[in-house]
C-alpha cells in the first residue's frame, strides 16, 4: 500500500509535471536546461526570468490523445511491449478493450458509438490512472531487478544522490514527453524523494513508480 504522504506529494507532482504554464518546451526554442540528451544532470542553473510575462494562447485548444495513442506512447516511452500494459483479469486490454470507449474510442458496429464521447466520462481518469500506474510499476520493478540493463531508472538505489534523481527524471521526460525536463520540474522530482524516503526498502520503487506516473498522467502527456 502507498502511504498518504506519497499520494499527496504525487498529486502535487502530477500538477507540476508537464504543466508548466510558461511553455511546454516542444519547440525549436527549447533549451537544454542543463541536462544533456543522455540524461545526465547538470548543475547549471535555469536562466529563465522569474517575472516572465505569460501570454495566453489565443487558440487555447487541446485534444485528448485517446486511449490507444496514449497507451502506445506510454509503452514505447517505458520500453514495454504494448501487450504488457494493463489487462483486466490479466486478459482484457485496458486501453483497447475494457476502457476503450471511456478513453475516447468508438464502436459503431454494435454499440452505435460513431464518434468519441463528447465529454470524458467519470471513469476516464480512473482508467488512465490504472494503466499508467501499472505500466510505471512494471518498469520500476524491472529496472530495480536488473539495474545493469535498466532502460529508465538506471541510477535507482536505496539512497540515490540528487544528481541520480535528476538524471532519471530527465530520462522520464525525454522518453515520455520527447523533451528535456526543465530545472523546476527536476527540482520537483528531487523533492519528491524526501516524501518517500522513509518508506525504507520500498522508497526507491515508490519514487520511480510515482515519478513515472506523474509524468505519464500529466496534461502534456494526455493531451496535445
Amino acid at each position, binding site marked *: 500500500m502507498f502511504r498518504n504522504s506519497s499520494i499527496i506529494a504525487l498529486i502535487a507532482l502530477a500538477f507540476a509535471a508537464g504543466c508548466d504554464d*510558461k*511553455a*511546454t*518546451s*516542444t*519547440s*525549436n*526554442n*527549447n*533549451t537544454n536546461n542543463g541536462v544533456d*540528451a543522455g540524461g545526465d544532470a547538470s548543475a547549471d542553473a535555469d536562466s*529563465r526570468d522569474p517575472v*516572465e*510575462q*505569460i*501570454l*495566453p*494562447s*489565443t*487558440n487555447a*485548444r487541446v*485534444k485528448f*490523445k485517446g486511449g*490507444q*495513442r496514449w497507451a*502506445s*506512447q506510454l509503452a*514505447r516511452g517505458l520500453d514495454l511491449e504494448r501487450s504488457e500494459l494493463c489487462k483486466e483479469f490479466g486478459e482484457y486490454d485496458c486501453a483497447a478493450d475494457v476502457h476503450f470507449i471511456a478513453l475516447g474510442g*468508438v464502436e*459503431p*458496429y*454494435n454499440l*452505435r458509438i*460513431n*464518434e468519441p464521447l463528447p465529454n470524458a466520462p467519470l471513469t476516464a481518469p480512473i482508467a488512465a490512472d490504472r494503466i499508467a500506474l501499472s505500466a510505471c510499476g512494471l518498469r520500476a520493478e524491472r529496472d530495480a531487478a536488473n539495474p545493469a540493463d535498466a532502460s529508465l531508472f538506471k541510477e535507482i538505489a536505496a539512497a540515490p544522490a540528487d544528481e541520480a534523481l535528476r538524471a532519471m527524471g530527465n530520462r522520464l521526460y*525525454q*522518453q515520455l514527453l*520527447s*523533451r528535456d525536463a526543465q530545472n523546476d520540474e527536476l527540482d520537483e522530482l528531487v523533492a519528491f524523494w524526501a516524501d518517500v524516503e522513509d518508506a525504507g526498502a520500498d522508497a526507491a520503487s515508490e519514487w520511480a513508480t510515482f515519478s513515472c506516473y506523474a509524468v505519464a498522467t500529466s496534461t502534456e502527456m494526455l493531451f*496535445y
Partner: protein
Amino acid sequence: MTFRYFLGLVPLATMFLASAVSAKPAAQTAFCETYPDVPACTPGFVQCTTCHSVAPARNAFGAQLEEQLAPGAARPLSDQAFLDALPGALRAVEGLDADADTYTNLQEFVAGSDPSDATESPASDNACSTVDYRPSGLDVCAFDPVYVYKKVMLDFCGEAPSYAQMKAFEQNPTVDALHSTLDTCVKSEFWLAKDGVLWNMANAKIRPVQAIKSGENEGPIPLADYEDDYNYFVYVTSGDRDARDLLTGDYFVAREDGETTVYTPWQRSPIQDYQARGYGQAQAVARPSRAGMITHRWFLMSNTMFTGIPRTTAAQAYRAYLGFDISKLEGLSDVPGEPKDYDNKGVDRPECAVCHATLDPLTYPFSRYEGIGGGGELGQNYVPFSYNPGRMDRFVGVDGASVADTPQAGVLFGQPVANLKEWASVGANSEPFAQALVGDFWKVLLGEPPRASELQQFENVWRRFMEEHEYRVEPMLHDLMLTEAYGVP
C-alpha cells in the same frame, strides 16, 4: 409489414416539429437579400436556427426581430406581408445585442458568430498584435512548425514523435519538412487501415449494424455488407483521388488487410458480382445508375428498407454528404408547389410542409432504387437494392394510386434534377459538399467545428479544395495543416 407501419410514422413524427404557427422558410433567402455577404449566407440561405430554437419557437435574436416585424399587424402575417416587413425589421435590430455579449447582432452576423449565443462572439483582437512577447519554447502568436510537427505525427501517424525525432526536426523546423511528414503519415496504417482515422470518419455516414452485416463476420440476419462502403470511403478520400466520387463514382473498392492495407477498385456488373461474391454481398445497381455511396447496397438497405418514397434515404444523403440535417431544420429551401404528398402521408399539412417542401423533391430521385422490398404482394418480381424505373407501381396498394405518379425528377438546392445521377452530380459539385467534407476533417483534426473567428480560414480551405485541388483530400489536408487554427498553439 411491420416496417411499413413504422416508416409510415416518419412523416407523422415530423409534424410535431412545427405547430400551426410555423416558421417562414421564405425568410431564409430573404434574409440573405438583406445581408448577402455574411458567412451564414454562403449557401444562399440561412438556417432556420438563425431566428428559431426549434421552429416556431424563437431564439433571442428571433424574439427581437419579431417585435420589429410589422408591429400592430394581425398575426399570422401572410408570406408577402412577412417578406415586405423583414428587411426593415432586420435593420431595426441589427444594432441590438440579442445575447448580451457586447457585440451587436450585425457584428455577429458579419463575423459568422451566432447573435443568440453568448458563448459565440466575433474574434477579439489578437493579443499577439499588442504584446511583443514570445514565451520560450512555444510561440503562441505565430505558426509554430515544431508544435505542428508533433500534432501531425499524432493526428496522422498516430504516434508522438520520439525525443530523437523531435531533436532532428528542431534542427530543420521548416514548412517543407512538415509537408514531408504529412505526406508520410497519410500513408500510415493509423490513417488508412480498417478502423483507422479515415475509416472511422465514415461511421456516421454509413451507420453500420453488425447484426445485419453480410460477408466476413456476418450477423444473424445478413442483409448487406457495409465494408464495401468503408473501403470506398477510405479509397476516395486518400491518395490522389477526386472526393466527388463519394457521390458520383460508379465502381467499388476491395480491401486487403496486412502490414500495409491495400485498397483496389473493381468493376463488375450485378450478375458478375453475384457470381463472384454470392447474393449476400452482391451490389445490385448496374453501372449506368450508380451514384457513389448513395446507391451502395448498404445505404439502400439500411435507409430505404421497405418504403415507397424513401424520405429517410434522402435525408441521410443530405445530412451525411451535404451537411444539412433536416431534422434540425437545416438546409430548408422550399420548392414551389411541394410537397405533393404522392403517398398520402399528410405531408402537405402546413406544419409538415415546413420541411417536406424541401425534403420531398429531394427524395423523388431516390424512389427508383429498391431497398429490401415493400409494396405489392409477395411474388412480384423485383431485385432488392437495384435500380428499377417502374418501382413506384408496386406501392399503389400500400400508399394509394397517386404514388405511381411520383416523379423520378426532383430538386436539389433549387436546381431541377432528372434523376439520382444528376442529383449526385449537383450535390458533389456544390459548395455544401466541399464544406461538409472539409468540415469533417476539420472536426477530426481540431476536435470541434470551426469557431466563429476561424470561418474565414475554413472558407479558404474548402474553396481551395474545390477550385485549386479539384476535390482531392490530401492536398486539402496540407492547406488545413498550415492554417492558424491548426498551427498556432
